[in-house]
């Protein structure tokens, strides 16, 4: 796969959001219930963003392949 700036940005976003979810998992047990639920909400949103980035990545790679 060739390196393209728009793909790099998406890949970076996926890495960053995955890292945040991992870090959030480390502290979830120490959070009071309400805070944990709030954190889980943000983690869920981050997971949705990851899915969106992955689909976008897939589309860009497929488009690039057809365009060649």
């Amino acid at each position, binding site marked *: 796969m060739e390196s393209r700036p728009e793909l790099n*940005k998406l890949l970076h976003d996926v890495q960053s959001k995955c890292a945040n979810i991992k870090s959030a998992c480390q502290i979830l047990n120490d959070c009071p219930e309400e805070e944990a639920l709030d954190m889980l909400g*943000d983690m869920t949103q981050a997971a949705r963003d990851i899915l969106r980035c992955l689909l976008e990545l897939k589309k860009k790679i497929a488009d690039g392949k057809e365009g060649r």
Partner: protein
Amino acid sequence: MSKLKVLVVEDERLGQKIMAKHLTGHLVEFAGDLAAAKQRLDAGRFDLCFIDLHLGEGDRPSGLELIRMAAEKGVYSVVMSSHDTEEMVVQAYELGCRDFYAKGNEQANIGAVLSKYHRDKAGFDSEDIFAGQFVTEDPATRASILEGVKYAASDLPIMILGPSGTGKTCLGKIIHEHSGREGEFVAINCAAYAENLLEAELFGHKEGAFTDATGSRKGKLAQAHKGTLFLDEIGAMSLDMQAKLLKAIEERTFYPVGSDKAETSEFRVISATLEDLQRLIAQGRLRFDFFQRIHGLTIKLKPLSERKCDILPLVRFFTRGGKHLSISQEAKACLLGHPWPGNARELRKVVELLAAGAEGRVTPEEVRRHLDHSATAWPAVPFIGEGHYRHALEMGLGKALDRFAREVIRRNLAENNGKKTKTMSALRISARRLYAALKEQEASDGIPA
């Protein structure tokens, strides 16, 4: 630890919450984009600034701009990135960042950053250590201690090797004091307890867990929470106990004796032993998995006999604040010539005896008198070394004893500048015995003694 003023430059809400949680107790401000970060850096006085390099929608690592700005304002900047290419790391350090870590393990990384920050701010001065905490002028020993301090802020286990009295516990404490850990330094000598008592001492116990358990008691593991557990004479621990402790270290949970409720404790392990670890493993006395878990950085401390340059500075240190002793040159020679099998601990005892008994001036006779007694004061030090034992097996006990006698006589003669009467008196031997030994030595060396 004092409250720090921290700026976190992070554009993701989840990321901000994670940082807020790890920086609880400090004054934290957040900036979600480059412009806001610049404004805050410009307006406020921060101790620390955590910077995410990729801010907003653009592809450019715009956070790089903030590193120089923070450095110019004297703010300790730390890059947290999920895009840590080598080129990016180099660029960030060139711009003045003080630390760089990959996102995803904030729990360990932020603690390490804060420890490093406090250490840097405190102005770590190695001379402070060598002047008061661990007196040594030996370059190799100084290097070993500084190596330990360098790893103090990490979670890596540390193994300190060295004979009894060389300062293993003292070094463990120094490492703990430089670790930035908020918990205590908790030491336990594993050889000092019978197996069941060691288990109760380490894990604690509940009331009625055994005959003498009249009340519940917190163990060393619980005491060392967020601190350092120093395991001295680790080789004395049974295999069963090693397995239990391994589980507690790996899972960070354990069961006090007589309890079915698990307790948690996060601690760093520093172990010490005077034994050869590889030999303990080969003999089946040390579990390999346990060894791997407690064995990170290894520091070897030399016996005092191999760092004679430390003997007189240690004498001065041990008399600091007390009676000033005037030690004659001959008395100093006696101190320097002694093998110090009990190392600094033995030296301290002798110095205390000298200080208590001397009129201010220390004579060689007095030193010798206390050294004679000190030889029997350390039953824990093996009377013969492995080399002597092997030699006796190879050559036969008679020949080995003859050689031992010759070596002792030769050494004492050298210490007495060849004065035979002094040696005969010191070793309480006859002239006949002395000359016989010298003759044997002559035959053995092939040269006149």
